[in-house]
């Protein structure tokens, strides 16, 4: 057995692991086209659940709220997260740096029930009415840390002499950032925005704590339906969400690759 190169053992473990990761999703997609109302018995091909999904106003309304929260919070999180990434990689030492990086890294692993409860108690304490804005603030706060991690890993790996050259040539810090740094880290910023967007799109727990009457998000709607039992409309909705996100991620990564290649050519 050759241990330094890819062998049959590696091929088998990859195949099994990918089967484990993808089979449940593929089955879910398959059964969204099931004519039978019984979610686990195949009754022929049909797209009727998609039709009834789009006629269900409850879902459509929740989808609209979710989309608004996701776009606004991802945009805010990208701005704040990029600033935080610059602080982590470029600001050097300052008082409170330990606290700062702690506040960036701990939301990444913090159980959502704790984050959600803490945010809610803050909003109640300062008397902010729960609804669209409280969900948006909560999502901005936890997703900006993910953006910070994605952007800072790009900032670490790129050549700082370019920034220094711009400063030597008379750029001030702000214009050096916009003229030199930003174009280089743009693919990472786009990836960060997408990550923040999908995290917000997916979140059930934090949204449940921080939402108020009239601002039910799609995951909250899905959750309450799933608690009642399996539902073919949920399969159809899940399939659409999976397609939407997968296409977005694949397009973004292809665009990122192209941008990198263009940059490599210019160098």
């Amino acid at each position: 057995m050759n241990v330094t190169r890819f062998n049959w053992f590696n091929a088998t473990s990859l195949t099994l692991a990918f089967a484990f990761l993808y089979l449940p999703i593929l089955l879910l997609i398959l059964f969204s086209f099931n004519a039978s109302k019984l979610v686990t018995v195949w009754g022929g091909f049909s797209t009727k659940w998609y039709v009834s999904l789009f006629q269900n106003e409850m879902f459509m309304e929740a989808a609209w709220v979710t989309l608004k929260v996701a776009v606004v919070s991802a945009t805010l999180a990208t701005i704040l997260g990029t600033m935080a990434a610059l602080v982590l990689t470029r600001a050097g030492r300052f008082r409170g740096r330990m606290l700062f990086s702690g506040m960036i890294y701990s939301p990444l692993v913090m159980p959502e029930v704790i984050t959600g409860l803490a945010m809610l108690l803050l909003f109640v304490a300062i008397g902010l009415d729960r609804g669209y804005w409280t969900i948006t603030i909560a999502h901005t706060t936890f997703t900006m840390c993910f953006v910070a991690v994605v952007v800072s890993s790009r900032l670490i790996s790129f050549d700082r002499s370019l920034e220094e050259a711009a400063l030597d040539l008379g750029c001030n810090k702000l214009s050096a950032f916009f003229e030199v740094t930003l174009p280089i880290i743009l693919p990472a910023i786009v990836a960060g925005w997408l990550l923040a967007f999908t995290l917000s799109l997916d979140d059930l727990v934090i949204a449940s704590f921080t939402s108020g009457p009239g601002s039910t998000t799609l995951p909250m709607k899905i959750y309450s339906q799933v608690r009642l039992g399996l539902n073919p409309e949920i399969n159809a909705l899940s399939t659409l969400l999976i397609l939407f996100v997968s296409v977005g991620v694949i397009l973004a990564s292809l665009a990122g690759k192209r941008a990198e290649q263009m940059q490599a050519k210019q160098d």
Partner: protein
Amino acid sequence: MQRGIDWGRVMLIGIPFIWLFVFFLLPFGIVLKIALSDFVNALPPYTPTLDWSAGLAGFTDFFSKLDFESFQWLLDDKIYILSYLESLKIALISTFFTLLIGYPMAYALAKSPQSWRTILLMLVILPFWTSFLIRVYAWIGILKPEGLLNSALMGMGLIDEPLSILNTTTAVYIGIVYSYLPFLVLPLYASLEKLDHTLLEAALDLGCSPVKAFWQVTFPLSLPGVVAGSFLVFIPAMGEFVIPDLLGGSETLMIGKTLWNEFFSNRDWPVASAVAVVLLLSLVIPILIFQRMQERQQEAES
């Protein structure tokens, strides 16, 4: 070099700092305060509330009314200790199984031909982007008594009557391993990929068997990835709510679910906060270790 205050730098640090301080750190102070308060049937459902208009007297009055009653409650009612221990057990066992599946996967990824690697990595990352809730939901249809797994096994004649997996701890293990696998594989792949192949070849040339070479060379060198990946599974799994709620049924107690029920069903905010404080205290050490590792890795890269 610089004269005066660099306002650009102050703003750059200040804006994200203040945002995180107000919306992330400050709320934990409030959780602690509510945990020391008492439950009342009012809005908001806790007492005391700080009366700003009463001045200093209001302050002293406020602090004198705080007590540890909610924490006492956590000790008196067995359900909290039981669900805490159960969470610890479930998180540990599922981290172990995630490692068992994730290690060979990351190892194979690190050794895979360069031309496939981008697409293979993409396939690992993609499920991480698709909704957590949906991926957990997908397992309900597979695991339930009349579900796909049971009909497949019965169709093959392997079992005579359906296995009951849904609404047991086994389903929770499957759910956690499935949901958190990419979190473990990615850092592990990163550390295995950096591994110096000549070391392994040297060990083999010096007469190590492949298995021994793995345990003496590869595994110790991949330990940072193993630890980082395991924390990324263990910490969120401890407080997991969706998986035990949807797959574990009523018999699975986990602390995240207990907190949720305390808050949404019993509407007892002080006890829910006390549960959060205890859970947080138990995670402080793993979170600090995780943070130190992230910082050290960043310093090593720059």
